[in-house]
C-alpha cells in the first residue's frame, strides 16, 4: 500500500476562546513536517485528523473519503504521541500485538508480522521486556513497530522524539524516513525543531495563529522571505 492523500477543507474547531481553521491539501506519499509557534494549533491539527477532537464544521478527507463521523479506531491512521504510546504494565510484544487485535487473538501469520516489525525497528530479542525496562528511544521504536503492524496508510507523529537527545532523535527520524521511503505511508510530523524538518520531511507546513500560512517543499519553504510570521518564528 502506498500513502493516501489528506485534505482538510475549512475545518473549524474552537476551545474556550481559542479557535483554529484549517485548509490543507497533502498529496499521497508526502512526508510533511508541521512547524509553528506554540498555540498555532499543531497538535490540534493532528488530533482532528486522528479523531481525538471533533471539528465544529468542515470536512477531513483521507483518500477522498470524509472521516469526520468515524471514531479514531476506524480511521486509516496511526498516531504516535509524545509519551504513553505503550501500556507500561504490558510487555512490548503484547503492546505491538494490540495493534493487530485488541482481543490479542493472533494467527501464525500475525506473529510473523510482529517478529518482522521488531526486526525492522531493531528490537529483536527484547520482545518480552516491559516499557520500563527499555530506554526512551527503544520505547518509541516499539511504538513504531506497532505502527508497522497496524499498516495504516497515514502516520501522524506528535513530537514523539522531543524528549530524546540529538543523536538518538536523528536515528529515529532516519528510521521513520526509511519506512516512509519504503512506500508505506503518508506522514505528518509535528516538530519544534526546523532541523527535523530539513532532515526528514519532503514538505513542510507552517502554522500560525490557528491556521495554515504556507505549505511547500521543505527547502522552498525555509527559503521564503515574504512570511513575517515564519521569519519571527525562525528568529533568523
Amino acid at each position, binding site marked *: 500500500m502506498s500513502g493516501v492523500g489528506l485534505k482538510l477543507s475549512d475545518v473549524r474547531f474552537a476551545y474556550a476562546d481559542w479557535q483554529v481553521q484549517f485548509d490543507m491539501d497533502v498529496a499521497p506519499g508526502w512526508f510533511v513536517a508541521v512547524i509553528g509557534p506554540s498555540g498555532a494549533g499543531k497538535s490540534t491539527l493532528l488530533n482532528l485528523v*486522528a*479523531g*481525538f477532537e471533533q471539528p465544529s464544521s468542515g470536512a477531513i478527507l483521507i483518500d477522498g473519503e470524509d472521516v469526520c463521523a468515524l*471514531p*479514531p*479506531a*476506524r480511521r486509516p*491512521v*496511526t*498516531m504516535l*504521541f509524545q*509519551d*504513553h*504510546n*505503550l*501500556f*507500561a*504494565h*504490558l510487555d512490548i510484544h*503484547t*503492546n505491538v500485538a*494490540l*495493534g493487530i487485535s*485488541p*482481543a*490479542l487473538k493472533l494467527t501464525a501469520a500475525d506473529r510473523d508480522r510482529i517478529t518482522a516489525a521488531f526486526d525492522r525497528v531493531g528490537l529483536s530479542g527484547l520482545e518480552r521486556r*516491559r*516499557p*520500563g525496562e527499555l530506554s*526512551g528511544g527503544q*520505547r518509541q521504536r*516499539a*511504538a513504531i513497530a506497532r505502527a508497522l503492524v497496524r499498516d495504516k496508510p497515514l502516520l501522524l507523529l506528535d513530537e514523539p522524539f522531543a*524528549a530524546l537527545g540529538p543523536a538518538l532523535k536523528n536515528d529515529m527520524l532516519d528510521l521513520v524516513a526509511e519506512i516512509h521511503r519504503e512506500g508505506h505511508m503518508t506522514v505528518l510530523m509535528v516538530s519544534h525543531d526546523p532541523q527535523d524538518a530539513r532532515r526528514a520531511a519532503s514538505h513542510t507546513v507552517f502554522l500560525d495563529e490557528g491556521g495554515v500560512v504556507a505549505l511547500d517543499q521543505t527547502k522552498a519553504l525555509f527559503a521564503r522571505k515574504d512570511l513575517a510570521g515564519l521569519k519571527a518564528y525562525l528568529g533568523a
Partner: protein
Amino acid sequence: MNRESIFAFGGGGLSLAIIWTVIAGAFAALVMTAAGGEGPSATLSDPYLWRVVRFTLWQAALSTILSVGFAVPVARAFARRRGFAGRRVLLALFALPLALPALVVVLGVVEVWGRTGWFNGLAEVAGFEPALNVYGLSGILLAHVFFNLPLATRLLLAHLDRVPAENWRLASQLDMPATAVWRFIEWPVLKAALPGAASLVFMLCVTSFTVVLTLGGGPRATTIEVAIYQALRFDFDPVRAVTLALLQLVLCGVLVISAGRITGDMQAQPSLGKRAARADLDGWIGDAVVIGLAGLFVLLPLVAIVTSAVRSDLARLAVETAMWQAIFTSTWVALSAAALCLILTAGLLSAVRASQRRHAGKPFFEWNTDVAGSLILVMPPIVLGAGWFVLLRGVGDIFTLAPLVVIIVNALMALPFVLRVLGPAVAQANLDHGRLCASLDLAGWNRLRLVDWPVLQRPLALALAFAMALSIGDLGVIALFGSEDFTTLPFLLYQRFGTYRIDDAAGLALILTVYCLGLIALADRVRGERRKVTG
C-alpha cells in the same frame, strides 16, 4: 452512542438511582414523620433540644479553637526543623489517630487522662488532688484535640511546604529575622489555610458520635447525634429523633455551604522544586519544646492502647465465642459494604469517563457524582440510619433487616473516600491511555482485562481496604441497629466499655486496631505498578 457507552451510562444511572433512593428514602421518612402530628413544634420548644444544640456547637467550637490553635505553632516548628531524627516517623504517627476506630482512641485517652490514668497518677505523686475528670466536656475536648490537632498540623504543614523555595532564598538574602519571616511569609500562608482547616475540624467535631457517646452522654454533655441515638434506642421517641436529625442536617448543610467546598484544596501536595535552606532558624529550643509536647500528646494514648492491651487477658478473650462471633459478623458486614461501595463507585466512574469522552456540555454524571459524594458527607450516617429506622419500623422487625441497613449505610459512608481514591486514579489512567485505547479499538471487556484492571489494581485494593476499615471501625449505625443477634466488633467493645470491663475493652480495642491497620497495610503491599513509566 455505542454499546460501551450505553453500558457505562446504564451502570452509572443504576448507581445514582441506588444512592439517591437511600438518601431520599431516609430524608422522606424523616420529613413525613416530622410532618405527622403536632410532635415537632412541641419538640422544637423543648429546652432540652436547644441545650443539645448549644452544647454541640460549643464543644465543636472549643475543640476547633484548641486543635487548630495548637496546630499553628506545631506546624510552624515542623516546617522550621526539617532535619531532626524521627521527624518522618512522628509525622506518620500524626496520620494515625484519624485511621484508628474512634472507640480505640477513646480508650487510649481514658488510659492517659482518666481518673486512674497516667496523668492523674502523676499529679497524685506530685502531691496534687487528681483533678481531671475525663467524663464530660474535658474528656470530649481531649479526645477531639487528639484526633484533630495532628490532622490540622498536617494540613497547615502542607501549606507551609508549598511556599516556593525562592521566597526562602529571598528571605535569607534580605537577612529577615524570624519575626519578619513570620509576618511576611509564614503567617500569610497559614492565614489562608486556617479557614479550610478550621471548618473541616469543626465539621468533624459537630458530627462526632463515638467520642461524645462514650465520654459524654449525660444531660449536660450530649450532642445532636448522640441525642438522636438516645431518642431512638432508649426513649422510643421517633418524633424527637426526627426533629434532631433534621436539625443536624440543616446544621451540617449550613456548615458545608459556608465553608465552601470542604473537599477542596485539602490534600498535601509535594512541593515542586528544590527546598532552600532557611537562614532564620535561631533558637531551636522553642521548636523542640513545641514538637516534644505535641509528640507526647499524640504518642501517649497510642502507647497506652498497646500497654493496656498487653495487660488485658487476651487468652481469656480468645476462648470467648462472643468475640469470634463479633469478628465474623464484622468481617462479612465490612466485606459486603466494601463490595457494594466499589460496585457503586465503578458504575459512577465509568459513566463519568464515558461522558467525558463525548464531551458535550457539563457532564451530567460528573455533577451528580460530586453532589452525591458531598451530600453523603453532609448526611451523617446516624441520620441516614435514623431515617431508615423510622421507615422500616412500619414494615416489620427492624432487627431482622438490621444487617442490610448497616451494610448499605456503611457502603454510602465509604463512598466519598473511595471516590477520592479511585476518581483521580481512573482519570489519570484515562489521560495516559484514553487516546491509545481509542485508536486501537480497545474497549469493553478487552480494555477492562488488558488495561484498566492491571493499572487500577492497586488503587482498587486500597479503596477496598479503606471501605472495609471504615465499616469495621464504625459505631454509628450499628449502635442504632445492633442487638444480641447482630453484634459487630465495635458494638461488643462498646458494651464491654459501657459496663466498665475495661480489660476486655482494651483487648478488643487491640484486635480492632490490628484488624483495621492490617487491612490498610495489606492493601499497601498489593503488587502493582509502582514505577511511573512514560512509554
